[in-house]
């Protein structure tokens, strides 16, 4: 059977395909060579401290002693941060303390001393990570809203952070 001529790449098209394939391979090599893998590390818990019933307590993201802290590694990348925020802290006997996170409760502190960038941790945020050094800081504040009749004792919850590379 004779192949249909239309299915055969012309020499020019073959050259283009070869160049395109080579370019894809080259891009892959550059991406792998640009730095270490994306990483996220927990550095400090978010601590609301000692609360009294009926009195809300806000921790600001620039509170170095009490704000939650993560650091993420990545250089010259665009990433999306997604927080998994607890709606309540859980305490003795199933008691809970509602939490609130909103605009300005998150801070992105890029490496290299650039100004902090405030964001709302309750929504995904897209960030451009600058070049080396590769470690950048994420600071998390929030507000605890204990009811007047809240039970005494210790309360806790888990805050998760996922960083995804938005590949080009």
């Amino acid at each position, binding site marked *: 059977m004779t192949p249909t001529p239309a299915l055969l790449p012309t020499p020019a098209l073959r050259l283009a395909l070869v160049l395109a394939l080579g370019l894809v391979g080259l891009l892959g090599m550059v991406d792998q060579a640009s730095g270490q893998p994306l990483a996220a590390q927990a550095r400090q818990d*978010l601590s609301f401290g000692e609360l*009294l019933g009926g009195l809300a307590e806000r921790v600001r993201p620039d509170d170095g002693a009490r704000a939650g802290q993560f650091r993420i590694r990545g250089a010259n990348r665009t990433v999306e941060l997604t927080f998994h925020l607890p709606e309540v802290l859980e305490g003795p006997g199933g008691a809970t303390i509602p939490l609130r996170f909103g605009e300005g409760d998150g801070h992105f502190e890029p490496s290299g001393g650039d100004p902090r960038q405030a964001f709302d941790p309750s929504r995904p945020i897209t960030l451009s990570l600058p070049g080396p050094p590769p470690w950048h800081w994420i600071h998390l504040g929030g507000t605890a809203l204990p009811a007047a009749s809240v039970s005494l004792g210790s309360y806790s919850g888990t805050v998760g952070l996922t960083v995804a590379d938005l590949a080009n």
Partner: protein
Amino acid sequence: MKRVLGSLALTAALVATVPAAAQAQEAASADINATATVLANVSVEGVNDLRFGDILPGFDRTVSPTNSDAGLFRITGAGDAPVTLSFTLPGTLTGPGEPLTVSFDEESAGFGNMNGTVLERFDPSSTYTLSLSEGGRDIFLGGTVSTAGDQAAGSYTGQVTLEVSYSGS
């Protein structure tokens, strides 16, 4: 035929590689804890009045915070939480004659555990911060009252208020 197979293989490789590059996505995650401790509300109770007792006209009388006539407040709250004390002190005692002058100095007040013993003295005229001990403290208050030579006989009284709040968080 050889040329055709070679070209098809090249095309297949390109199709397989481009989507893989576009979909390559790297992710990382980490967790921290969010924590809080709910404290018992702090409270204060007046237990004993500050009693200057019987005084002759023209004489003064000083009551030490370690004296059994000293005033006593009892504070209860959370563990060893720090609290701030703020007294509202009378300048005089009022009664049937001219008011009696009352004064307080840097050692007129004292605090202790809830066992009646003064551990340390302080000035009740200024705010003062201390830590609770096992959820409580006793606060003692003394002072000095002065009478005039022609002071009218009778009973004189005044009110002392102690306000307590948690300090810091």
